[in-house]
């Protein structure tokens, strides 16, 4: 349906306005201006920040440059999360643009993984896709693909090519009609105040009595605190791609249309802002 295609496009082309500032502690030859960029929600930080690096290297001496890393209000940003997830989780209700601080020294080994090249990101991306497909189709679809098909998925993401990506990705969104949906839905629920990085469990899209499960059903099962009981004030926002879908939205549809390119449904639960 035309609407569905539009949704896919809107999800793919989502952008976050970001302002990159150099950490004041960095040693510079002269003052560095801030660098503004519209970051794609569905991509990853190492893939889209080449220009940022080039901009800031202009004012730095080569011997002071180590691996670049980003931080928002003291929190080092994990590059292996999609950018949209990072924003929704940390800065969803703040003033735009999103202010990120750029560092070139003192890489926090405890909190972040090193990312020396884009091929690391590619490997991580492909492994997410394979994990998702193992939940959806017992890995049959992704294993039937050839190496060049996998490459096409990654290149589509890296070069921001919607059609190239979805030419392959639609295969991963198919399911046998008699099943009514995927085997299990690949999802992750992120919370701001928790020791756990995320919640990921097995969950079927269709109930045993052939009813489609909704977003609300998922939350009730996985994170009931996120739901508002009758009469209470809303405490949490459930964000996917920066929007709050209605709780009666079918989960199968969500997985097909609102997943990230890595085929996972990334759900952020953040506290409602207290103005």
């Amino acid at each position: 349906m035309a609407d569905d295609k539009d949704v896919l496009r809107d999800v793919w082309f989502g952008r976050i306005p970001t302002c990159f500032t150099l950490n004041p502690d960095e040693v510079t030859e002269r003052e560095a201006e801030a660098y503004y960029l519209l970051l794609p929600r569905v991509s990853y930080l190492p893939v889209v920040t080449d220009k940022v690096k080039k901009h800031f290297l202009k004012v730095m001496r080569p011997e002071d440059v180590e691996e670049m890393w980003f931080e928002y209000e003291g929190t080092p940003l994990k590059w292996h999360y999609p950018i949209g997830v990072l924003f929704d989780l940390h800065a969803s209700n703040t003033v735009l643009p999103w202010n990120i601080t750029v560092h070139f020294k003192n890489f926090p080994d405890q909190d972040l993984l090193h990312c020396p090249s884009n091929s690391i990101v590619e490997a991580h991306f492909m492994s997410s896709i394979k994990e998702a497909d193992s939940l959806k189709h017992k890995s049959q679809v992704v294993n039937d693909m050839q190496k060049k098909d996998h490459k096409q998925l990654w290149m589509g993401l890296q070069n921001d090519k919607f059609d190239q990506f979805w030419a392959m990705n639609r295969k991963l969104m198919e399911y046998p009609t008699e099943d009514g949906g995927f085997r299990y839905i690949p999802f992750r629920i992120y919370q701001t105040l928790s020791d756990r990085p995320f919640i990921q469990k097995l969950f079927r899209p269709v109930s045993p009595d052939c009813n489609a499960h909704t977003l609300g059903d998922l939350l009730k099962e996985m994170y009931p605190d996120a739901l508002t009981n009758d009469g209470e004030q809303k405490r949490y926002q459930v964000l996917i791609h920066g929007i709050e879908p209605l709780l009666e939205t079918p989960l199968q549809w969500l997985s097909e249309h609102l997943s990230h390119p890595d085929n996972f449904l990334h759900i952020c639960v953040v506290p409602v802002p207290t103005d």
Partner: protein
Amino acid sequence: MAERQADCGWKRHISDQLKLRDRVQRHTFEEIVQQYNRLLEKSDLQAVLTERYQTEKYDVQRGHEASSLDASRSDSLHQEMSQMRIRHQEELTELHKKRGELAQTVIELNNQIQQKDREIQSNEARMLEYQQQIAGLDGDCRDLRSSLQVRLHEEAHDGEVNTVRFSPGSRLLATGGMDRRVKLWEVVAGRCEAKGALTGSNAGITSIDFDSAGSYLLAASNDFASRIWTMDDYRLRHTLTGHSGKVLSARFLLDNARIVSGSYDRTLKLWDLRSKVCTSSVTPVPSCLLTCLHLENARNLKMAPLMTSSVTLHHSCYHSHHHDVDSVCVFSAQGFKCGADWTRVTFSPDGSYVAGGSADGALYVWNVLTGKLDRTLDRNHSSAINCVSWSPSGTYVASVEKGSRAILWSDM
């Protein structure tokens, strides 16, 4: 219907929410970020350019400062420099001129070389022509010479001609052949005329000899006997039998009273003419020596053409019972082959040349002292030469061949 409505509800909600998000997060900032980045680029460029201009300006300023401080010194420096410049200019023009001259000489030399090359080529062409002419003339010379020298060119016998000999006076020539006859020819004024024939032999004649006076003729024959005729009347006088094989060669000894004959039975027999008996017989003798007995002065020099392509000069001394044979000298030539194992060769009367006939019909003449081939006379015999004889006067050489022809060569 209600489901569809509900469907549309959450779906439309999502759609609307996405649009709203984009309006807030993307559209409001897109333009500004673009323009900001463009400005950033421009300012970067400006910074780079100003830096460059600054440094240039500083350099120029420093240059100016330096010059104003020591003006006087720079004046004399200036003068020096201009003088140097003038000198260099002059040198430069000189070098240019010299280069032009050298180029000219190079061109001239090249032309000369080319000319010389052409001359050389034409000389070589002419040389080639001359060489060809010389070769042609050489051939003509040889032809002429050999044709000049041929006096007699005739079918001498019916069948092979085995032997030929000049009489001591050089006027008579005797040939012997397989037709059992000895034919006599008179050599007069460079021509040969048939004079007569001696009969009496029962088989082919192998060898002929005259006595030193020329009054007797001795002929050895395949019928195991040697015969003597008188030259005045051509009558057969004596027949010497006793050999048990073909008599290959027979000679008068110097006293004309004795005869020595060599035979295929490997014996040399000495005959006394007065008693007409065999006085002694020597065996064994290497059969090669029996093919040719040629007495020269006091020594026995026998020449034995071996069945090879060379003629070997043997020096042998005969004393009653022993003999040595030494090979003195070997004459050979390309193309010379003995026609049979009893082909004969001969010395010239003064002993300085050796003449031999070859299987291909050519007469070879060697110089004894140098051992080298002196002349080759070919194109007159059509088959192998059996025997050669040199006239005592030295002017003629007679050669006879298998094919019954006898040829007389003059001007030897």
